[in-house]
């Protein structure tokens, strides 16, 4: 991520949020964060992000609702890649996310923070495709 990328992380869990912020910051990338779904929509629509990392279980608005809102034809973030970054691994949920317009679905529990960074970084660099951004395991 040589050229400064703007990344929005929508995550309600403080520990997880700061964990990703830390590892991204080490690589010189400032993660902007939203703590609930509504804030996620507000920030996404207000800013020009290169990618949005979106949790699903969020207060106020779920990640699925956020995704739906950001994939409306009139949404400013319509073209912004959205990678779901969740601990929900149920296949039906993953399918639903892709149906709405997700660009990836990663299970937090499967990946160490650095691996998340690398995946996102590679995805932004065009080295990884949507299929590569799919959770490697789904046990739910």
């Amino acid at each position, binding site marked *: 991520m040589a050229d400064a990328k703007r990344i929005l992380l929508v995550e309600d869990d403080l520990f*997880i949020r700061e964990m*990703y912020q830390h590892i991204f910051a080490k690589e010189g990338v400032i993660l902007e964060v939203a703590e609930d779904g509504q804030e996620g929509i507000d920030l996404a629509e207000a800013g020009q992000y290169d990618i949005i990392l979106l949790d699903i*279980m969020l*207060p*106020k608005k779920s990640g699925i609702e956020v995704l739906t809102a950001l994939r409306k034809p009139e949404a400013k973030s319509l073209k912004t890649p959205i990678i779901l970054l969740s601990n929900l691994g149920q296949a*039906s949920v993953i399918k639903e996310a892709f149906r709405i317009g997700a660009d990836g679905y990663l299970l937090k529990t499967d990946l*160490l923070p650095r691996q998340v960074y690398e995946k996102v970084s590679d995805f932004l660099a065009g080295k990884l495709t949507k299929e590569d951004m799919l959770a490697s*395991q789904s*046990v*739910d």
Partner: protein
Amino acid sequence: MAEGQSLNQGVSIELSSPAFDQAKKGDDGISKAYFPTDQTSPQVDVYSPITNEQGSVIGIIKSQVTLNTLTQIFSRLNLGKDGVAYIVDDEGQIISHPQAAKIANQHVSILGRPVVNKLLKGGYASLQPIDHYYTNESNVPVVSSSNLISSLKWVAVVEQPESKVFGQLLLTRNLLLVGMAIGLLLLVVIALAISNGLAGPIMELKSSAKRIQQGDLSSRLQIHTGDELQDLAGSFNAMANELQEREAHLQQTNSSLKLERDRQETLLQSLTDGVLAVDGSGQILLFNKAAEVITGIIVNQAVGRSIDEVVHFFNDTTLLPLSQYSDQQDEFKLQLHQRGLTFRRGRISVPVSLTVSPIVPQGRSTSGWVVSFRDMTKEHEFEAMKLDFVSMAAHELRTPLTALRGYLSIIQEETEKILPEPVRVFLNRSMISANQLASLVENLLNVSRIERGVLKVDLVPLQIESMITETLTNLMEVARQNQIQLTFDQPEKSLPPAMIDRFRLAEVLTNLVANGITYTKRGGWVKVSLQLKEHQLITSVTDNGEGIPAASIPHLFTKFYRVQASLAQGSKGTGLGLFISKAIVTAHHGTIWVDSKEGKGSTFSFSIPVATDEEIKSMGRSA
């Protein structure tokens, strides 16, 4: 005859006079006073009839009486130092006076004095008060009084110089003034004495009471007057003691109450449910942290205001009139869990469940209400995604594990070069344990699903080959770390697709390869192969590890069964992998088995039926 009167001797022819005539009629007669030429003091003639037995006057005795004696008597009258008494006859002549010079032969008439003439003419009643004041013949202002001696037509006068009379009065007045002054002085002295003896203690009492009022309960009175004041001070001190004790008790109670309140407050604030308390009139008394988070309303905006004004809960589109619930009495408790119950504020709409409970102090009627509400977003999400309990549990267990492993990895990364060897090992063990825990959690959840018969596979026609390639890619790093050569013997020609759940089957393969790595010595190998045999696609994982004792083989696919691992320190399995793998393979209508020789190595294989044309058509080709 008056006592001591001397009789002038001699004989004379007596001329007729009123006094003599009176004597001739048989009564005593007394002449006017007159001054004989040879005498300095006046005298009177007294005629006394001499009667026979028949009462006829046969002679008259004439006595000449000087008034000296009278004067002497008068002069003896005690009229003070300057007072005089004297007698005036009806012509105003002084006929008797202590000072001989004043007597009438001086021919001074004092008939002009009202005390004399008015008395002679009109009697005592005619005298006016003013008549008693005049200046006498010696030019001295006097006060006098007089009395008429009617038989002699004399007037007895008593005079006192005014200065003497009123001098006495002045003296009296002065005495009175001095007395008053002394009295006043005495009063002041007494007042001072009283103020020292009475007012002093009272002032002390007052200031002490004031100190107590201001909160200084240690204030005590030191009054030793030996009277009621001392008693009062005693009572006061007793009261102060009592107050101090009560204050101490109160403070103790207060601090324990405060402690309890703090505890309650902490408890309340740490709840993830929003809690607000209202009084009987619906006014908000309390608004906890979670309530702030859920509603976006800060506590200062809520407390003191009406609940209906601040928070709006809807049942679908109907506003719940929360304040009306406070009209309900006794055991009323409202619990609303239905869908469609939301908290709304502006654009915000949060799904909630709601509980309204009365605050009923022991033995009393309702004094307010507690409204607790929970953000149901997640629950509704789970529900909306049709997730079962295990999925929920998986999510909730994964989140802290993600953080645990994530932070451990960051610590490892950042301290790799600075940590001393043992600590680095310990940190690595922590990471391994966290991984095991994560793996155990996943496996237990799977076991739970298997046993409840809800383990679902989402079968789509897919090339098993691609699944194998992808899975092995993920495992290469683990193999490398364990110095195991991991290879995939790709079939020479493309094999038909099978109906598989890509992720589930990858899990099976991962399990088998991981086992191979675990139970093979460093420098060994693990090979994966795929072959088609009688419409079955057979995937095999072969290692040149230690093998499995024959006795263990029948138990391998049961729950929690573990073959003692002698290698790969820290890579202890959960004893669930093969159990789950078998369940997954079975769900794919396949079978799983093992061939192993102790000391030589093992081969784990599973077969999946080739997808039928119908299956492929109905599902379509999936990416």
